[in-house]
């Protein structure tokens, strides 16, 4: 090996070393305050719960994990399915799924409409989507609460119009959760959809019409397949936070219509069962990862090489 080669190799090594040094602060902070704790939590999920919260350090047990899915009968000590937990997990999945569907139904036409405006007005529309996006989630949830509660805007308007005789009970139901999540996460669907529709080459649409497609066929056979990556990106962005929703069901769903996030919180609060809470959190992460894998698989299958 010549001296020049050695010098080049050394320079490359030096470059990589300084790149590690540069990224060290970010990696360290994320390790300490994001990833590391997840491993500690995994460890905690296999410990015996403490009498007043926390865990009995060093005493191991699978109790936390079994009680995610099963419960012990108080009388004969047999294991049965933990219906309460399972129904909450199932409800969370369902609600997140329907939230995703609703945001697509509203978000796709909106994003398409914005993307087909002239460039200068387009910016204003996008800006109008961005404002709610950056508005505090709690404030938007609270705003929704004021619309759908019994004396709220919606019921007042409907009563005044004579459509209903007595207020509709929306708040503290699953419908409230669904409406709240759709409302809060809608911008997360519109923005990626817009980004991918904006990149669409509308000459392809013209080519579609030229080849005798109707408006609907153009939409279905040309536009939607081409912007599928955007739909998938939006769906991931909506589904994941929906599944882990905590604030929205707490404010709108009330005590009876909990989602997984609230169930987890309960184990660290009044439930005083940290191992169970930890196991549930990891279950939630597994669900999210599974959803991600399904979406990504779908994306790579239907991508057709278009971006």
């Amino acid at each position, binding site marked *: 090996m010549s001296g020049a080669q050695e010098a080049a190799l050394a320079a490359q090594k030096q470059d990589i070393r300084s790149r*590690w040094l540069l990224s060290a602060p970010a990696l360290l902070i994320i390790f*300490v305050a994001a990833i590391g704790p*997840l491993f500690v939590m995994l460890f905690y999920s296999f410990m015996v719960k403490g009498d007043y919260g926390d865990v009995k350090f060093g005493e191991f047990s699978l109790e936390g994990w079994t009680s995610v899915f099963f419960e012990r009968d108080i009388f004969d000590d047999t294991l049965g399915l933990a219906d309460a937990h399972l129904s909450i997990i199932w409800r969370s999945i369902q609600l997140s799924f329907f939230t995703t569907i609703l945001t697509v139904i509203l978000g796709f036409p909106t994003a398409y409409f914005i993307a087909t405006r002239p460039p200068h007005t387009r910016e204003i529309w996008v800006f109008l989507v961005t404002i709610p996006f950056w508005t505090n989630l709690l404030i938007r949830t609270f705003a929704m609460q004021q619309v759908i509660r019994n004396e709220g805007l919606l019921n007042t308007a409907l009563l005044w119009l004579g459509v209903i005789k007595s207020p509709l009970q929306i708040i503290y139901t699953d419908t409230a959760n669904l409406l709240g999540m759709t*409302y809060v996460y809608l911008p997360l669907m519109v923005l990626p959809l817009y980004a991918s529709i904006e990149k669409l080459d509308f000459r392809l649409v013209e080519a579609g019409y030229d080849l005798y497609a109707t408006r609907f066929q153009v939409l279905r056979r040309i536009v939607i397949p081409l912007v599928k990556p955007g739909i998938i990106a939006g769906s991931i962005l909506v589904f*994941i936070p929906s599944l882990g929703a905590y604030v929205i069901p707490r404010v709108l769903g009330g005590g009876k219509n909990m989602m997984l996030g609230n169930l987890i919180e309960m184990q660290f609060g009044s439930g005083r069962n940290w191992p169970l809470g930890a196991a549930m959190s990891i279950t939630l992460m597994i669900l999210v990862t599974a959803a991600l894998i399904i979406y990504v698989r779908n994306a790579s299958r239907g991508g057709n090489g278009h971006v």
Partner: protein
Amino acid sequence: MFSRRYDLRSQPGFGFITLFTFFALYLPIAALVIYSFNDAESLSQWGGFSSRWFVAAWNNTAVQDAAIRSLVIALWAALLATTAAMMAALATTRTQPYRGLTFKYALINQPLMVPEIVTAVALLIVFSRIKVWTGYSGLGYLIVAHTAFCIPFAYLPIRARLESMDLTLERAAADLYATPWMTFRHVTLPMLRPAIIAGFMLAFVISLDDVVITEFVKSGGQDTLPTYMLGQLRRETTPEINAIATVFLALSTALVVVFFFINKRKQ
């Protein structure tokens, strides 16, 4: 009408759905703002126009404390996150792939991939034990936690900007006798400035908005504005909370507007 029917890109009903979407997006916010000017004691009825709840909120020491705490945390977190993110972005862009590069991407974006509630309880577990061990229970925990989840947001625009800048300009500077540090100072940094500002503002807003992680990490008496509001929502609420929300809303809208114009000037 004629031209609209022959706009080949339009789809029937899409305009209507768009209008509905925007109506639905803004109606609740409008209601919230309007009710913050409600003179009545309760949100249930309209008692005439008044700004007295803004005055009440302003004089509420709990709100003052929470607001100041929110700003302090957001400033620190945004500052630390932007610095760390800028360094990380410089380290992960404009290079041949090297061992560990994908690992870095994954790690930096990890906070985006995990539901907040999961991170929140994991931090609760770890920090509660550290609090017992060290006896320290100050704002440090919140700042570190916020910094961690702000990093990916600050990283995003800076990385995007760096990737759109090829190395030619830095090479040109080196060719014109600039040392690596001078190149960074006179070429890289000025060109990155809009992205750094954008990253900082994103991080700031994200930190300011956080409810869940703060709720689980905070020690007693460390309410931020959002956790204070969350606590209030459990009770029968007065328009005071609307007033707080309205001010908060105005602040984040102002930030978004500034952000928007910075972005616009960049193009």
